[in-house]
């Protein structure tokens, strides 16, 4: 019974969400409870009958799936209801009293022609209230039409009684005409007798003809009236049943009860079978186990009212226990079924607001997960956990944690790709991480870091090129860490940087060595140490400074050596050799002097090895 109710409610929900379009739900793999038999041809409401699966709260219709408690229409209506004040005005109370009175008057306990008439009069009163939406008017119209139809049938019955009298009269007349006595005897001649008989038969037929013809006409009229009566009654029943079905689908269960009780009052022939389509009939037969009747709808409406009442009671109890998730679900379910029932409409707003806050946060959580804002989602989960002790965080947290983990993995890969200069992988991984968790704070951080790193890298490369063109190798040495990192992706620059660092190693080594030699008072040796390097790296300022300082300290040696070199340049071999020898005398270990002497010796004695 409950399943059938849910199915029928699903049908009504389908009408509600008709314009919304399907929400993407993981329903294709979800099991369907009692899948409906596909209709042979597409109809106004699609190919299939709607079905609701209470197991997963999915409503399936025409190949599409909706979560009954998680769609925009439901959320909007439910939130609107939770925010609305309870219907406790005098008008609404009066309306409830009238409806209650109508139901009481139509109750089988008090059912009579008088009570039906009184109930009929109350319908127009009930329809004066806005909450009724003039449904009682529609109901009154249907009852009145049925009564009119019943009156017409009565008149047809009376007409048939008159026709029946006439038929009987014509039958008697016809019999009299056929049995009229012969006053003349037939002739004895055989031929003459035959002609006489024929003439008598002709006379009899002529006498009977008007009666027979009229009799046939009367019979036809009687049959025609009987057919009209049956058709009129059937049509009236179908119209009335359609109205009951419509009220049921609109979840106006009190009106359904009123309508079914009027139906029984109007059509007293005991025929309560619903004239619905083949598919619906088969569906009812399969789910309810019997052909649908007006009583079926009556029972379903009663069941729905009871179910809603229990739902509201459960809500109030669960709220007291601070189990807001279950409470909100129960109230949501009760609202879906009994949106117009007094138990729902009269629930105080203060009680509803407890569910409202939870529902808003829950809806926000669903939205946050849908848009993949897992930071907000996690925050909401914690809020919901603190506000509702029965909140089940397993599903949202599983989604959040999974997304976070996968996003972090992609970001780690992106970082590695950035370090190794793999731009394609970097872009792919960043894109994947963005798709999984677009508002991941780490994403912006990593992206910023990568882009900042790229900027720093580009700036470092520009600086490196500039310093290289200026032969400012010392500055390159001082910023070598920056340039090593920046040139990692550029082999040509890497090669240049390696050469610069190697050269600077030589320069620094020479400066350190000269410093050590100078500490022992051997300024000529110290000078020679830096002089050898400075010939190769004449642009290094520090080297030049050290060299200049040592030139002052070893002035005589330097002057002697330089004079020797100048003389050598002027091809003053004798003089140059003399100066080199003098320099060697001043600093016997001088390599420059020795080289100069050796060089000039070879000039003097070319054959000498």
């Amino acid at each position, binding site marked *: 019974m409950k399943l059938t109710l849910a199915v029928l409610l699903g049908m009504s929900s389908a009408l509600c969400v008709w314009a919304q379009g399907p929400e993407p739900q993981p329903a294709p793999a979800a099991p369907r409870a009692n899948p409906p038999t596909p209709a042979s041809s597409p109809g106004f409401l699609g190919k299939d009958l709607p079905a609701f699966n209470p197991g997963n709260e999915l409503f399936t219709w025409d190949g599409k799936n909706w979560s009954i408690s998680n769609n925009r229409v439901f959320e909007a209506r439910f939130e609107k209801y939770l925010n609305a004040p309870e219907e406790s005005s005098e008008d609404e109370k009066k309306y409830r009293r009238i409806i209650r009175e109508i139901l009481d008057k139509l109750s089988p306990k008090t059912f009579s022609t008088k009570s039906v008439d009184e109930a009929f009069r109350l319908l127009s009163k009930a329809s004066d209230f806005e909450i009724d939406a003039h449904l009682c008017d529609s109901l009154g119209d249907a009852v009145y039409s049925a009564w009119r139809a019943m009156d017409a049938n009565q008149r047809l019955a009376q007409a048939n009684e008159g026709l029946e009298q006439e038929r009987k009269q014509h039958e008697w007349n016809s019999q009299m005409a056929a049995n009229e006595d012969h006053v003349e005897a037939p002739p004895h001649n055989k031929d003459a007798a035959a002609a006489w008989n024929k003439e008598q038969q002709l006379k009899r037929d002529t006498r009977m003809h008007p009666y027979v013809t009229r009799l046939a006409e009367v019979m036809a009229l009687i049959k025609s009236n009987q057919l009209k009566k049956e058709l009129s009654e059937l049509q009236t029943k179908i119209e009335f049943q359609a109205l009951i079905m419509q009220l049921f689908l609109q979840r106006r269960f009190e009106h359904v009860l009123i309508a079914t009780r009027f139906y029984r009052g109007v059509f007293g022939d005991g025929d309560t079978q619903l004239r619905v389509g083949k598919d619906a009939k088969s569906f009812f037969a399969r789910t309810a186990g019997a052909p649908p009747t007006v009583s079926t709808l009556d029972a379903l409406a009663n069941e729905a009212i009871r179910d809603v009442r229990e739902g509201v009671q459960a809500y109030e109890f669960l709220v007291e226990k601070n189990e807001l998730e279950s409470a909100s679900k129960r109230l949501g379910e009760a609202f879906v079924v009994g949106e117009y029932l007094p138990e729902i409409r009269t629930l105080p707003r203060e009680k509803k607001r407890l569910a409202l806050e939870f529902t808003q946060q829950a809806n926000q959580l669903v939205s946050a997960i849908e848009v993949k804002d897992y930071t907000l989602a996690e925050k909401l989960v914690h809020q919901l956990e603190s506000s509702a002790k029965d909140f089940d965080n397993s599903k949202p947290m599983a989604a959040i944690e999974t997304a976070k983990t996968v996003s972090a993995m992609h970001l780690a890969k992106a970082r590695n790709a950035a370090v190794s200069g793999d731009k394609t992988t970097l872009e792919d991984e960043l894109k994947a991480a963005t798709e999984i968790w677009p508002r991941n704070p780490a994403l912006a951080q990593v992206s910023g870091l990568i882009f900042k790193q790229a900027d720093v890298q580009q700036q470092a490369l520009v600086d490196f090129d500039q310093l290289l063109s200026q032969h400012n190798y010392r500055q390159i040495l001082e910023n070598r860490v920056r340039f090593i990192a920046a040139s990692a992706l550029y082999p040509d620059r890497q090669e240049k940087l390696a050469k610069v660092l190697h050269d600077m190693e030589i320069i620094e080594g020479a400066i350190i060595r000269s410093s050590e030699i100078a500490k022992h008072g051997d300024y000529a040796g110290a000078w020679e140490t830096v002089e050898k390097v400075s010939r190769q790296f004449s642009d290094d300022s520090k080297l030049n400074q050290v060299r200049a300082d040592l030139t002052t300290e070893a002035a005589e040696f330097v002057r002697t050596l330089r004079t020797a070199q100048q*003389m050598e340049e002027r*091809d*003053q*071999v*004798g*003089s140059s050799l*003399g100066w080199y*020898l*003098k320099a060697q*005398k001043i600093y016997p270990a001088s390599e420059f002097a020795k080289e100069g002497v050796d060089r000039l010796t070879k000039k003097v004695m070319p054959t000498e090895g």
Partner: protein
Amino acid sequence: MPRRANSSAHPLWIIGAIVVLIFSIGGGYFFFKTANDPYRTLTPLDVHAYLENSNSLRGNVYKLDATVADSLAWSPVAGRLYSVDVTSGGDMLAVMIPAQFNQINIQKGQRFYFRLEVGERGILQVKDLKKV
């Protein structure tokens, strides 16, 4: 008591004798020295001028008093190239001793009188040498 005759030399005579002796020794030394310099007629090499521009002295013959410092090179055909420490001034020079003097034993620290000519590219070519 009879007055004794004064027998001691007059001091002026003693001073004069000393002066004569000194001059005699100095003159003897100078004579000895001059007589010992075989190239006393030659002009000593102006080492400073040579070092400033050796080429400008090409073709001139000079004498040089120097001590052998080191052997720079040796060739059986061309001879030997030595570095010498000029006695006066402490400058160093290179002298080319041709092969014709190969029989002369030249060692580091030996002092020689060189008769030499400023040759091609200012090279000092030894023409003769005498050990001091």
